Structure formats: C-alpha cells, structure tokens
C-alpha cells in the first residue's frame, strides 16, 4: 500500500484526485459527501463543491485556480490561495486519494 502524504504537502503543482471511497449527492450547488471507508458524512459549501467537481486527476491546483479565476473573474493569486486551502481541507478530511486523513472534528459519524 503506498504511503499516505500529509495534506500540508499539497501545493500548487499537486494534482489531487477524489477518493474512490467518496459517494456524493449534490443539491443546489452544495454537496454531501459520504466517505464509505470511514463511515462519515461531510458537507461541502458552494466553493468546495465547485473545486471538488474539478478534481479530475488531470489538472493541478494552479490550473484549477486559473480556470476558477477566469469563470468568477477574480484575481488568480487570491483564487490560488483559496483553492489550495480548500484542497488541503478536503485532503485532511480523507476525501483525496493518497492523502492522510488527519481531521475528523467536523465530519459527521453515520446515523443512529
């Protein structure tokens, strides 16, 4: 099994990939993500959902920020920092391939 990396090692050249254990339901631009490996649920806001949907395993964080900046007409540097922060957050929640889950406080354990 390949060694898991810390979310802090993600940078603008990283190419994040959505976890294969994630099942997503999107509603009105927000998403609820079921982590089937950890049996936990996560709520993604509009920004995180937008970024999540772009994590195709091809584009890197910098490229993603460029695309989002163009669409939203926002300065690339600002978008780039925000995108990286969200990607690291997704990694810390265990929702990216190869990234170590190191944050569970805000996730929701499944059901009663």
């Amino acid at each position, binding site marked *: 099994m390949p060694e898991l990396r810390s979310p802090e090692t993600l940078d603008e050249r990283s190419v994040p990939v959505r976890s294969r254990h994630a099942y997503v339901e999107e509603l009105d631009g927000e998403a*609820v993500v079921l982590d089937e490996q950890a049996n936990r649920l996560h709520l993604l806001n509009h920004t995180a959902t937008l970024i999540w949907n772009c994590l195709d395993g091809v584009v890197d964080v910098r490229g993603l920020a460029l695309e989002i900046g163009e669409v939203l007409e926002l300065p690339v540097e600002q978008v780039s920092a925000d995108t990286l922060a969200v990607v690291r957050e997704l990694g810390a929640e265990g929702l990216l391939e190869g990234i170590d889950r190191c944050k569970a406080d805000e996730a929701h354990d*499944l059901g009663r």
Partner: protein
Amino acid sequence: MTKAFRSRGFHALAHDFRIHAESVPIGRYLEGVLSGFPEPASVEHEYLVRPAAQHSAPGSTEIVRIDVDGDGEEVVASSEHLGTLAGSFVHHLNRMAIDADYAVMCHAGGVQRDDVGVVLPADPESGKTTLTAGLVRAGFAYLSDEAVVFGDDTGAIEPYPKPLSIDAGSQHLFPELEPAPAPGDDGPPEDQWQVPPDAIRPGAVGTPCRARLIVFPKYEADAVTELAPRSRAAGLLELATNTFDFRDHPRRSLARLAEVVRGARCFRLAVGDLDEACALITKLVEDGGGQDRA
C-alpha cells in the same frame, strides 16, 4: 391459539402482529391503544396477554411474544399497572417496527395537510411528539411521532401511526388528551401517556404522501419561536444523521434521502411556544409548502 380475546391484525412497518388476551377488557383496551395502526395483509407475529408468572408482583400482567413454531415465547412487557404495560409494549413494537431493511426510516415526527407531507426530524427530547400532537390538534393529519418512513419504491412517506407517546413534561399542554385509566388502574401513567391518534380527532391518520417540508425542531424554554431556512444540502446531512441504522445501507440511504430533500424545502424551527410553532408551520403550508421545489 384459543383465548377469550383475539384482536384484529396490526401493520407496524416491518412488524405485522395480532394480540390475544385471556381477559376481554384488557384485550379491548390494548386494541384501542393500538387503533391507529392499519390492518396488515397478513399477520406474522402473535402476542399473548396473560397474568404474569408467579415471581412477578401480585396482580401483574405480562405480554409474551409467541414463537410462530409454537415452541417458544419471550416476555416483552410486564407490569402491575395495565397503562404502564401498554407503554412498554408500544416501545417494544417500535423496536420491532423500525428496520432499515424494510425502508429508509428517519427519527422524526410527521404530519400532513392535503398533499403536503411535513417531516420533523429531531433527537430525543427535542419536542418532536409535542409539536406533532399540536399540529394534529390544529388540523394536520398524523403520520408518526417517532419514525418517518420513505418507501423504497416511490419515496413517498408511509404512515406509522403508533399511539403518540406524550411525556410528563408536555402533558399540561394537552389536558384534553389525558387517557382514561386502563382497566384496574387508578389513573393514566404519569410518566408517559399513550394516545391513539383518533383520540385527538377522529380520522386523524394521514395517507401516503410526499415530503414537501422538512423542519428540524428544537424546543428551548423561553426561546423566541422562529423559522430559519436551511440549505437542502445541510438538511440532507441532518436528515441522514437522524436516520435509523444509516450505516447499514449508507449509500442507498443517502441516495433516497437526497431524492426526498430535492422535492422539499428545509427549515430550522426554534420552539419556545407550541401554538406559535404550529401557526408558523401552518402558514408555511398555506403559503405553498413545497413551491420552491428543486
């Protein structure tokens, strides 16, 4: 099984049953408590109500579940007070009725007006039964005070019209619902009343319907009673955390709940005053319930 009393059958979600009693008045009393349940297509479980075994308190009655093979039995409730026995039996039936293999089931109250189903998911002690009872008294049809069931074929709510279990802390809000003492009892149980829905209003039980409003209530003494919109995604997350045995079928459950939430609007409801809370929900329904459907 030949006994003095044999009830009709009852359909309680995953649990279809009938009761037999050695005493006709006791059998009739329990049949009345359970009168909200519809008839099942067939009966799979049998219960017997009889004087308790000798090691119980004098005058106790017990309810035993009879093994279908006829060679075993299990005591599911026992008390010297019939009203208390009925309460224990209702809680047993809840445990039997709620089964994630049957359908996706949320810990929630549920009411209905016309074709608008209103789901009230909440943790225990959040005032779910109180709000449900208040809404039924205000004219809504009753679906459940415990479990709202989203049928696997269509996602429509299947009513689970168990008796409403009204705790001591809320009984002063419903003086007209105080049950008559059970046969042999001096009064109704103080800790919890079991109120059949037709005691609130004849014909109070609702019919299968779609969830159009999902309202998360929270009782807080002295709180300002107010509604606040929630996003559908936040509503879905909270509904999922209020789903029985979600972890048994997580993906299936989330998909079904998402389908339900897409057809509904979501709100939080802080409840400081029951009548105001009922008025807010009534207005929500009258203003078009699920108008803003996804």
